[in-house]
Every structure is written in structure tokens, then in C-alpha cells.
């Protein structure tokens, strides 16, 4: 009998120094205050979101250790949580993560065709990143946009009623945008948290 192998990489301890800017740090403190005294671990999910956005686009062991130290919890408590939720990336991803809904209505209304189109267009398979580091393609489960199927999410933005033409246009736009600095996102944490 054959088995299917599960490869979860055992990471090396990473002592790279990472840190939030003072501005973000004060936002983090503000988030922690939303929870009762002694319940600061509650802030873990929001802070991991911010850490992922601010500190390199994915959660490296160094970033997670830093978050653990901010909340005075054991690093393993952060690893456990980060690997549970699909929105946290524990491997590097492209600048734009194209998350295409593959569930129920989206599948019945062309979501699988969109995925196939993107795989061909970008020359990568679902789960992979283009060599220029611009796009990561990901099939995801229900995005809660069934009435607007097929849908995809690119970072925090939703794109609905997708067609292959629409997807092509979007890819062009994102490509042309690749050198745009992250100024518009500098208020990311403020906007979403």
C-alpha cells in the first residue's frame, strides 16, 4: 500500500532581528488594550495579521518569535496558531496572492475554469509562486461571495463575477503596479485594525 507523504518543514531557529516601527508598535499596544488585563494573548490573531503585512509578507520563525515576545507567550503557542489559520503564510509568498474560490457556487459557476486559466497564463500550479516573485496562486475554500461567483481575493481586495478577460486585465494592472511603493498601504494596520 502506498502512502501520501506529508512534508511539513522543520524550520531552523532564526535569530534575525525584526521589529515593528514605533508607530505600529503603538497600534499593537492599543489592540492589546481591547482585551481584559492578563488576556493579552487574545491579541494574537490581529497582531499576526499586522506582522505578516509589515514584516516581509509572511510569518518567518523570527517574526513569530518576535510576536511571542511582544505578548509574553511561548513561541510554540504562536506556531500552533499560525499553522492553523489559512490566511497566515508560513512560507514566503508573492507580492500578490491570488486566492481563487473553489467551493460550491464558485465551482459550479466557473471558478475552476478561472483557476485553470490562471495556471496556464502564469505558468505555475496552484500553491506556487511566479519566479519574479509577483504572484502566488492559491485555490481557497469559500470566500463568502457566492452571489457574485466566481470570485477571487487579491490580498484584501475582492474581485467578483470573474471572466478570463477580467482576470487578464487585472493581471496587467497588477504587473504595471509592481514598482508602486507601499505608501498606500502604510496605513494598513490603521485601516483594518
Amino acid at each position, binding site marked *: *500500500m*502506498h*502512502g*501520501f*507523504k*506529508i512534508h*511539513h518543514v*522543520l*524550520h*531552523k*531557529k*532564526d535569530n534575525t532581528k525584526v521589529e515593528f516601527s514605533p508607530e505600529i508598535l503603538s497600534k499593537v499596544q492599543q489592540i492589546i488594550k481591547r482585551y481584559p488585563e492578563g488576556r493579552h494573548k487574545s491579541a494574537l490573531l490581529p497582531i499576526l495579521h499586522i506582522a505578516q503585512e509589515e514584516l516581509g509578507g509572511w510569518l518567518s*520563525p523570527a517574526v513569530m518569535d518576535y510576536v511571542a515576545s511582544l505578548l509574553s507567550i*511561548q*513561541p*510554540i*503557542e504562536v*506556531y*500552533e496558531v499560525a*499553522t*492553523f489559520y489559512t490566511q497566515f503564510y508560513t512560507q514566503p509568498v508573492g507580492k500578490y496572492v491570488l486566492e481563487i474560490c473553489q467551493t460550491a457556487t464558485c465551482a459550479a459557476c466557473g471558478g475552476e475554469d478561472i483557476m485553470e486559466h490562471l495556471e496556464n497564463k502564469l505558468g505555475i500550479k496552484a500553491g506556487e509562486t511566479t519566479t519574479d516573485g509577483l504572484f502566488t496562486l492559491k485555490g481557497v475554500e469559500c470566500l463568502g461571495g457566492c452571489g457574485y461567483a466566481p470570485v477571487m481575493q487579491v490580498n484584501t481586495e475582492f474581485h467578483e463575477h470573474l471572466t478570463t478577460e477580467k482576470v487578464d486585465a487585472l493581471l496587467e494592472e497588477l504587473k504595471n503596479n509592481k514598482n508602486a511603493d507601499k505608501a498606500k498601504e502604510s496605513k494598513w494596520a490603521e485601516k483594518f485594525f
Partner: protein
Amino acid sequence: MPIVTIDNHTIEVPEGTTILEAARKIGGDIVPPTMCYYSKLKGSGGKCRTCLVKVSQGSAKDPRPMPKLVASCSTPVADGMVVQNITSPEVLEARKAIVEFLLINHPLDCPVCDQAGECDLQNLSYEHGANTERYEEDRREYDKVDIGPNIQLHMNRCILCYRCVYTANQIANSRVHGVLYRGDQAEISTYIQNAIDNEFSGNVIDVCPVGALTDKTFRFKSRVWFLKPMNAHRNCTKCSGKVVVWKFGNEIYRVTARKDQFHEVEEFICNDCRYDHKQPEDWTIEGPAKLSKQSVISQNQYGNLKKPSIILPIEHRTEKQE
């Protein structure tokens, strides 16, 4: 104090007692099997579902039956509650299904597994499992990992009972391993290359119901039923020093904690006793460890047997007579 009836046995237990603990007080065949619950570990239980029972009467006040089977390890009794375990075909059917679920991704290679002979899953399958296998798909496989110098983790065999996680939290007092990822991809891991290094970390081996966490100092040295488990003690500054030493002849092959009739560790022991004291002179032997009659290990237990009197060769006879 609530009075509860389990499989026609009635017992009075303190408020807040679970159905399982009440059944253990009654004892015998009506005790539901457990794979994740561990009375010494707070928060454990509820996960494996092997201890499901039927509550055919909720309480004297509200005699309605509970709509679903309940996990006996985490459901408290109520006064007048009536519970069915082995007297309910529905429970036995469900338990058979649970055993099947536990086994579909568990390798069926007991002959090469170090836990064979003292494996809770093996016993469970023997008592409650089906004779045939219906699973035809691929099984999941992981690489073996050393977590620390003395413990090997083989995730293929893990049933995600979480006992080792609770042990690290509550006994070892610091935790570097946990359950990562989710669903059937979940695994016990340290995430980064990290040794589980703590004076009580070896207890995760004893609480593991299967062969997922094994003692590297003992792996493949012997089958457990070839060894003689003897209760022994030593003066230890870190733990009680009360252990079981597993002997082959005069040699000590391994040291474990003592276990009670429900296969639970009586007192957790330190790594010093477990790994670093394997000379016969390290220990004061008290006598053979008690094992259940069903255990395959007990075949080498001569403690309760009367040895036949034998006629000694002539040269020894006079000696003996003195």
C-alpha cells in the same frame, strides 16, 4: 450526592464526577475505553470519542434521554442518570466505527512497532475493532523526527490525543512542542529544530497511547513481553523515584513510570531515573509489577504463580537441605 446507574450497576458519586470516573469506580467490563482522556492531565479528553456512551435517562428530574451519544470522560453525572455502555448495541457499533477511523491512517504494522504489546490502540482494536479493513485509499506518512536526544516522534502512528501536549504544559512546565496545522494534516511538532529538553520531558513517552513517542534508549532492543517488569525505587531528589524497571535477566533494558489498572501513570518520573539509571545496583527491587491478566506482558510474570517443586541434582541436594 448523585446516584447513577451504568449498565445496571448503581453507584453514588460526588457532584461533578464524570460518567467515566463513576464507571471506573464500579470497575470491570463496563469501564469505557479511553485513548485521549487521562485523569492526571487537566483538560484532557473528549477528543478520541472511544468512550462514547448512551444516556438513556438524563436525570431523575429530567428523564429524557440525551439525543446523541456523549463522551463519558467529559459528561458529568446527574442524580438518577441511567447510562448504557456495553449493554447498548448502538454504543458498541459507534465504538467500532471510531476504532476504524483511528486506524485508517494508522499503519497496521504492529509486528515492527515498538509499542506492540503495550499499545492502547492495539488493545482497543482487539476488543472493539472489526475483522476486516474497508479503507482502500493511501495512508498519510511523515518522516520520523528526533525531538530531543532520547525521544523519537513517529507521526504516522499518532492519533492526536493531545496527552503529550498537556503533559508538557502541566508536568514538564514548559512546552516547545504542540499540535501544528489542522485537520488530518495536523501533527505534533516543535516547528523549529528544537529539542524537548526538560527534566520531566520523558513522561510524554509514558502517556502516549500508541507508538508515536518512543524511548530512543530502548527502541528495538527487545519486545516488551520478553522483559520482566519489576517495581523498584531509588532515592531521587527530583521525583518520587518509584518506577518500573524492565529486566532481561539481570540487565535493565528500560525504566518507566508505574501504571495503574487504567494504564495511567501513577507518579510521573524524572529523566534522570528514566534514562540515566540502568544498572541493577541503582535500584532497590520491590517485586514484580502488577499487570492485567489480559496483557501479553503478563505471560512472563511469575509473581502470582506457584513454582513447581523440582528435584535438584544430587550435588546440590545437601546444600539445599542446609
